[in-house]
C-alpha cells in the first residue's frame, strides 16, 4: 500500500508530466539543473511537513475554514525554507528569488493537502507527500538538466559538451521550458499507453 502510494507520485501520477500541476515554478526556475534541484528539495520539505501537519490536525479543522488553515500552514513552512536559503545558501536564494515565496501557491502542495492528507492517516500522507515531492524533484532536475546541457553546454555548472557545440540560448529562455516540458510530457504519455 505504502509503496503503491509512493509510486503514484514518482511515476504513475507524476505531478509535472501527468497532472501538469505546479507549472509556474516548473517552467520558470529550471534554467539550470542546480536551480531545479534546489526548488525540488524546497518543495519536498514543504510538501512533507504540510501534509504531516494537515493530516494530524484534520479532525479539529472545520470544513469552512480548511483551505485558509492549509494555506497558513504551507506559508509557514515556505517561509522557513526561505529564511534557511537566505541564511545558509545565499547564491541559491538569489537565483530562485521570488519563486521561493511563490511555493505557497504551488498547486501541488495545496492539492495534495486537500485531496490526500485531509482524508488519510498521517503515515499514508507522509508517503504520498514524499512520492509527489520526489516526483516533482526528478521532473525539475531532468527538465533543468536538459535545458542546461542544450542551452549552456554544462551540467551542474560543469562543462560537458565540447567547444564546437554552439549553445542554443533559446533553451534557457522561457520558450525552451515549454518545448522541453511538452516533449517530456509527450514521452511520458506514450510510455504509459
Amino acid at each position, binding site marked *: 500500500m505504502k509503496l503503491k502510494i509512493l509510486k503514484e507520485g514518482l511515476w504513475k501520477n507524476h505531478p509535472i508530466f501527468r497532472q501538469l500541476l505546479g507549472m509556474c515554478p516548473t517552467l*520558470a526556475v529550471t534554467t539550470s539543473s542546480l536551480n531545479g534541484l534546489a526548488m525540488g528539495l524546497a518543495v519536498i520539505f514543504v510538501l512533507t511537513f504540510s501534509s504531516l501537519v494537515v493530516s494530524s*490536525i484534520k*479532525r*479539529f*479543522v*472545520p*470544513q*469552512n*475554514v480548511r483551505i*485558509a*488553515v492549509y494555506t*497558513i*500552514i504551507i*506559508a*509557514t513552512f515556505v*517561509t*522557513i525554507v526561505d*529564511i*534557511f536559503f*537566505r*541564511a*545558509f545558501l*545565499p547564491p541559491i536564494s538569489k537565483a530562485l*528569488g*521570488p*519563486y521561493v*515565496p511563490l511555493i505557497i501557491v504551488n498547486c501541488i502542495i495545496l492539492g495534495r493537502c486537500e485531496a490526500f492528507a485531509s482524508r488519510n492517516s498521517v503515515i499514508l500522507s507522509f508517503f504520498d507527500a514524499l512520492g509527489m515531492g520526489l516526483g516533482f524533484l526528478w521532473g525539475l532536475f531532468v527538465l533543468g538538466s536538459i535545458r542546461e546541457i542544450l542551452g549552456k553546454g554544462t551540467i551542474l555548472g560543469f562543462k560537458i559538451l565540447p567547444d564546437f557545440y554552439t549553445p542554443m540560448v533559446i533553451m534557457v529562455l*522561457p520558450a525552451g521550458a515549454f518545448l522541453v516540458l511538452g516533449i517530456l510530457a509527450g514521452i511520458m504519455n506514450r510510455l504509459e499507453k
Partner: protein
Amino acid sequence: MRENKFWSVLVLTLISSICGFSLAWVFSLAKDKIEENQKKSIKRAVYNLCSDCEKIEERAIQGKIIYCLYDKKNNLIGYGFCSDGQGYQEKIKVFFVVDKDMKKLKGIEIIESKETPGLGARINEDFFKNQFKNLSIKLPIKCVKHKPSEGEIQAITSATISSKAVVNIVNEGIKELKNLLGK
C-alpha cells in the same frame, strides 16, 4: 468535525498564532547569519563596482553604516552606502558607491528585492544597473522613458514602478549620505 462559527474562528486564530510564533523563533535564529551574508554581498559589490578599492572601512554615523573606500596608497576614493525603500511589492535594498566628492555615482547593486519575475526583477540585470555607472549626481537622478541624456536613467519597459523605485531609493540614499557626512 464541528460546524460552528465560534469553533472556526478559534481554530484559525490558534493556528495562525502558532505559525506566527514559530516563524518569529526561526527568524531570530537565522537573523545574524542573514545579516552576515548581506555584509558579504556588500563587500563583493564594492570590489565589483570599484576595482581600485583595496580597503573598506566601516564608519557608523548616527547609527548608519557608511563604507569608506581606500585605494592601495590609502587615499580615500569614495563612499558606499545602503539605502532601502518601497518597491512594487516589497522593500528594495540598494547599495551604491559614489566618488569622494559626491559628483559621480560609481555604480549600484541590488542587495535585496522581491519584484515580479521577468518584469520588475529585471532591475537585477546588468543592462539596468550599468546605466548608473559614472552617472552625474549633481542633480537628483531622473527616471525617463525615452533615450536617457545626462543624469537620467531609462526605465525598464513594463516595469516603470520598480525602475522609479530604484532611482528614488538611490536619490534618497545620496541625500542621506550627504547629510551624514555634512557635505
